[in-house]
Each structure stands twice: as structure tokens, then as C-alpha cells.
């Protein structure tokens, strides 16, 4: 399917239109269970995101990068992954984390300011959130090289934003991926802004997907607000990757409905009109209409899904907030496999200067 949409011709894969109508011949006909799971994950992601914003405003969570508007891209790509695949995220991936089974309490715990929240539970192949832009890309490529060397038959996914495509690590990483023909899928969340700088200031290329062509592998632009399109493209790219066919770049064309972070005010650099236009393309609304057409959605179901999401969110917040703060030992213990004597002395000196309760 990917090859049918040529970014150089301005073609973009879209399965669901804004009224939730599936394009003829493109509907992947997913099972009812999976369709509902996609929807439920998107609802969870939106609820969890809204809660994080509230917590930040209340001083209970640190600076936060909201995911609102990205749910279809995040949930779509992660739902296509298998448990053995690896994920190298950027910093706006809440829906993907939830879908891959990362505990929401841990996710909150990290944004609340504790590294313990970045400790991926054993058994999950999720690398920690990467904040230096694009730096996760070469890492994902290295994982791809290792997967190939070890003949694991898995794929490695990296996410990135549109701004990341301007970074050297994007070029270096994708170039490596092409040369080593790694089992990578790169999903670029083109949400039109890198903080305030618009997509047009990142690249003169007509699409970001077409950059893949220069690295010797396919790129495809998909409607990032269409969970089925993101799912289908990722599913196909993962299958290609796992079977030795090499990497793919997917550009999920979407919009950052929120501010860059809670320290940003997007009203300074974009118009209400523009935001309203994108509200009409809301990924959840569109998918709800699609489910409704299939008889998989009604008000009672909606209530149930919302209640379950709210329950998950509240429980996760409570769990994260109940955790003890990092101790002095915690912040020293993981610098080296075995702390050198100097570091132990620094730790002890710090402890001696602290009141009993903070040691």
C-alpha cells in the first residue's frame, strides 16, 4: 500500500475522511475488538494528557509536553507493533506508551520529576524518552543493526517531530539505516511546529516523507489524524523491516493542538482560525463516526470508555504521587555500575548536610 502513495507526487495515504467514511478499497477491515481497542487507547491518551496538564497547573507535575491531537498517530503506530519490536520514542508519545503497556503511573512519575518513572518495566522494549531532538534516531538504527546481527527478526521503531528532520542526527541516522538496510521504521510526527517555528522553516522539501528517497528507502506521508492510515502504513513498514526489506520513513501529517509544552503559549505564533480548522479534523471524532457506522459505538459505550479512562488516570496519578521521592542513594547509585570512592564520599557529605527526613 505504501508504494501507491508517492510523496513526490503529493500523494498522502488517508483511509478515513473527516466524516469517518473509509475510502473504497483501503479499509484494512480490522477486527471489531481491535477497532474498539484503538478507540479506547485514544480516549485514554487524551484523558491522561488532559490530566497531566491540570497537574502541571496545580504544581503537581513539571514542565509537560502535551500530546493532544496526536492520538491517532501515537496509538496507530504502537498498535501495529508486536511485543518483540523495540521502540525509541521522542518526548511526545503518550498514546504510544500507553498502547505498548507502559504503566501510566510511571509515565506521570517521570514528568513529575523522578527518574524512576523512566525505568521501563522488564519485558517491555521501550527506550527512555529522548529529549535532545533527533538523538534517538541513530540509537534506533544501532538497535536495528544489532537486531539484524542477532537475527532476531524484529523491527525497531523511532518517533520524531518535524523539527527533528533538520537535525544532523536525522540525516546521519537515516543514512546509516539505508546503508545497513536496518529493520527500522521511522515515524515523523509532522505536527507543523517546532515550538513556534513552522514546518515551512524546517525544510524547503514539499514533504518530509520524500527525504527517505535520498537515503535509498521508501517514505510515505499519511494522514496522522487517521488512526487506520497510521496503523496500516506502520503495519506494512514493520512487516517489510522484519523480513529484511529495510527501513521506511512514515510522515504522519498532523497538528499539535496544544502548546509545545506548558511553558509555551502557541497563541503567540498561530491563529485561532488555523487551530479551529484542525479541530474539525479531530482524530477521535473521526474514528467515533467510523465506529458508529459499523455499529461499534453508541452513547452507552462512550460513557463506559470515558469512565474507564478516567479511572485509569486517577489511579495512576494516585499511584505516582504515593511513591516516595528519590533518596540521596537513588540519585548517586546509578552513575556507574559501582560507585568510585570519591562519589561515595560526595554522597556521604551531602547526606550529612541534610535533615534526617531528606537523606
Amino acid at each position, binding site marked *: 500500500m505504501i508504494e501507491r502513495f508517492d510523496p513526490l507526487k503529493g500523494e498522502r495515504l488517508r483511509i478515513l475522511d473527516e466524516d469517518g467514511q473509509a475510502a473504497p478499497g483501503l479499509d484494512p477491515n480490522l477486527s471489531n475488538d481491535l477497532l474498539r481497542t484503538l478507540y479506547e487507547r485514544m480516549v485514554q491518551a487524551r484523558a491522561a494528557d488532559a490530566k497531566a496538564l491540570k497537574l502541571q497547573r496545580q504544581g503537581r507535575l513539571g514542565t509537560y509536553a502535551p500530546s493532544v491531537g496526536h492520538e491517532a498517530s501515537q496509538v496507530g503506530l504502537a498498535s501495529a507493533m508486536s511485543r518483540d519490536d523495540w521502540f525509541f520514542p521522542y518526548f511526545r508519545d503518550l498514546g504510544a506508551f500507553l498502547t505498548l503497556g507502559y504503566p501510566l503511573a510511571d509515565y506521570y512519575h517521570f514528568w513529575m520529576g523522578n527518574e524512576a518513572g523512566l525505568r521501563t518495566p522488564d519485558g517491555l522494549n521501550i527506550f527512555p524518552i529522548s529529549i535532545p531532538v533527533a538523538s534517538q534516531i541513530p540509537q534506533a538504527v544501532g538497535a536495528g543493526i544489532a537486531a539484524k546481527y542477532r537475527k532476531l527478526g524484529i523491527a525497531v521503531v523511532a518517533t520524531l517531530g518535524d523539527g527533528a528532520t533538520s537535525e*544532523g*542526527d536525522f540525516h546521519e541516522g537515516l543514512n*546509516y539505516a539505508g546503508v*545497513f538496510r536496518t529493520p527500522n521504521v521511522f515515524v515523523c510526527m509532522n505536527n507543523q511546529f517546532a515550538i513556534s517555528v513552522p514546518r515551512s522553516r524546517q525544510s524547503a522539501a514539499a514533504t518530509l516523507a520524500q527525504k527517505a528517497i535520498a537515503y535509498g528507502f521508501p517514505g510515505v506521508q499519511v494522514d496522522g489524524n487517521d488512526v487506520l492510515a497510521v496503523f496500516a502504513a506502520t503495519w506494512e513498514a514493520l512487516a517489510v523491516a522484519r523480513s529484511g526489506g529495510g527501513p521506511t520513513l512514515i510522515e504522519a501529517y498532523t497538528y499539535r493542538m496544544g502548546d509545545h509544552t506548558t511553558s509555551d503559549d502557541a497563541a503567540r505564533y498561530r491563529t485561532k482560525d488555523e487551530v479551529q480548522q484542525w479541530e474539525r479534523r479531530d482524530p477521535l471524532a473521526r474514528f467515533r463516526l467510523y465506529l458508529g457506522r459499523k455499529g461499534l459505538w453508541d452513547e452507552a459505550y462512550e460513557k463506559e470508555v470515558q469512565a474507564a479512562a478516567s479511572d485509569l488516570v486517577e489511579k495512576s496519578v494516585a499511584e505516582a504521587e504515593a511513591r516516595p521521592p528519590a533518596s540521596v542513594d537513588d540519585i548517586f547509585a546509578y552513575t556507574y555500575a559501582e560507585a568510585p*570512592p570519591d562519589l561515595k564520599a560526595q554522597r556521604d557529605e551531602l547526606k550529612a548536610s541534610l535533615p534526617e527526613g531528606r537523606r
Partner: protein
Amino acid sequence: MIMTMVQAINRALAGEMERDDKVVVFGEDVGRDGGVFRATEGLFDEFGPERVMDTPLAESAAVGAAIGMAALGLRPVPEIQFMGFIYPAFNQIVSHVARLRNRTRGRFTAPLTIRTPYGAGIKALEHHSESTEAFFCHIPGLTVVVPSSPTDAKGLLAASIRSDDPVIFLEPTKLYRAEKQDVPETPYELPLRQAAVIREGRDLTIVAWGAMIPVAREAATAAEAGGVSVEIIDLRTLSPMDRGTIVASVQKTGRALVLHEAPKTCGLGAEIAATIGESALLSLKAPVMRVTAPDITVPLLKSEDLYYPGPERVLRAIRNLMEY
């Protein structure tokens, strides 16, 4: 077996690759060509292109890829062709390699060894002579290792590759072929984080590493003729630093001189002097002195001799210390 340092490094790589099929070597020219200094010569034929990988010319990707390889269980040994070209990878090293263990509370680590030739003295062209080890010593989580002999190079590189911590392994280009030693053929480790007292003395301690070791030895021999007994500490691991060995030596000799080929300001000599000040002040008969490169850009090859500390400068410093 009699060999140079670069051959010892080659044998360390081969030995570790034989021991552990998770060890992979990669970088620019490391494969077919065997590396610009021939450090990886023969490995491509011995272990194949999957384990000895020629890569695109991209230092950040090399180090970034090493992180991802380590996540999937490999022991990557990327080569950066010269230390002067490591800076594009600085972001990966500082923002990820050094802190991965901490930021994931031990779930992920980066047991990789970044090898890079460094330092002046081979009349190379611009950007090939810098000695910027202090950058890396400043970053918590990194281990910085510098060998000064073939025997040390083999044992320290093996230990670095086996270490669960990331290591920046700096290879003094001037010493690659300066000296031959009888190096054991079987793999062996020399302990990291342990300095070596390579010459015992009573009157004065020189702390040095890498290519400054032969300079220190030459000065010490000359000083001995003048009746001054010099002890030399080869630091070997620059960070985390073996402060105990330095302090014990200075407590014995009462005089300390730090010798490094990096510029003076914020160089490692400052850290060593501070350590001595904190822990051996009352043993000192004179201030801690530093003989270093000046705080200027490394000159091109015709003036390299002006920049690089030589035995004469060290001897002058020894005299000043003894007469203080």
C-alpha cells in the same frame, strides 16, 4: 610476543572478539583498510563484515548506534578516527551514553568503548593533535582511560570492553609505535580506576599519563643525575581518578608536579592539584606545579615542538620545586 602499542590494541580487540561474540567493531576505515593507524588490521578477515563494520562518515551516528546496539545486548567498540573529530558525537556521549544508566535507574546501560587516537607529536595536520580529555572527565558516568605502553594498552582495553560502564579509550598516537614490549598473547585485564607507580622516588611526584610518560621518565632520569629522586605516577584511568595513589605518593615525597599535554586552564592538572591541596596539604614542601601545554590553539606541525611539553620544561619545574 614483541609488539607495539597499536599491535597490542589490535590483539586486545581480536582477543575480546574471540571471547565474546557480542563485541563488534565499527567506524570509518576500520574494515577492509584496517584503520588509518592499522589498529583493526586483519579483524575484517578474521571476524567478517558483520562484526567489523565500515560505516558512513558520521561520528554522532556511530556513537548513537553504539547505544542502540548495547540496548540489544552487544558490546560495541566504535572507533572515532581522531579525537579532533569526536565533537559531532558529543551530544550522544554527554546526553545519552554517560547518563543512560542513571536516567533509567539501571534498566538500560551503555557498556560501550569509544576508541580514539589522540594527542600531539606525530606532525599531523590541523585538528589531529588535540588533547581534550578534560571535557570527558567532567561528565559523570564516563570512564576515561589512557594507556602509555603496549602491555597496558592491551590489558586496559580488554578491561574497558568488559566494563559495564561506558569508556572513552584515548590512544596516544605518539606512542602507537614508539616502543615495543613483550606482551602476553592470551587475553588479560588490567584494572581500571587504578593508577600505577611506574618509578619510585623520594623527593618529588610527577603525575602524568599517555604520551607524557616518556617525557616524565626522561626528565626523572636527568634529575636523578642531579641527585633528585623522582616518583612517577601513570594515572591510566583519568576518570574516575585514583586519588588515593596520588595522595599517598605526595604524602611521601612532599612535592608534586602534574604534567599534561592539554592546555593548562581547567585541565586535569587543576583537579589533581586541588585533590592534593585537600588531602596532602601539610605534607607539601612547595606548591603543586603544573607543566602543560599553554592556553593556545595547537600550532601546526612546524611549531608543534614549541607547544608540546618536553623534558627540559619538566626539569626546570623540578628544579624550581626543589629550590622553593
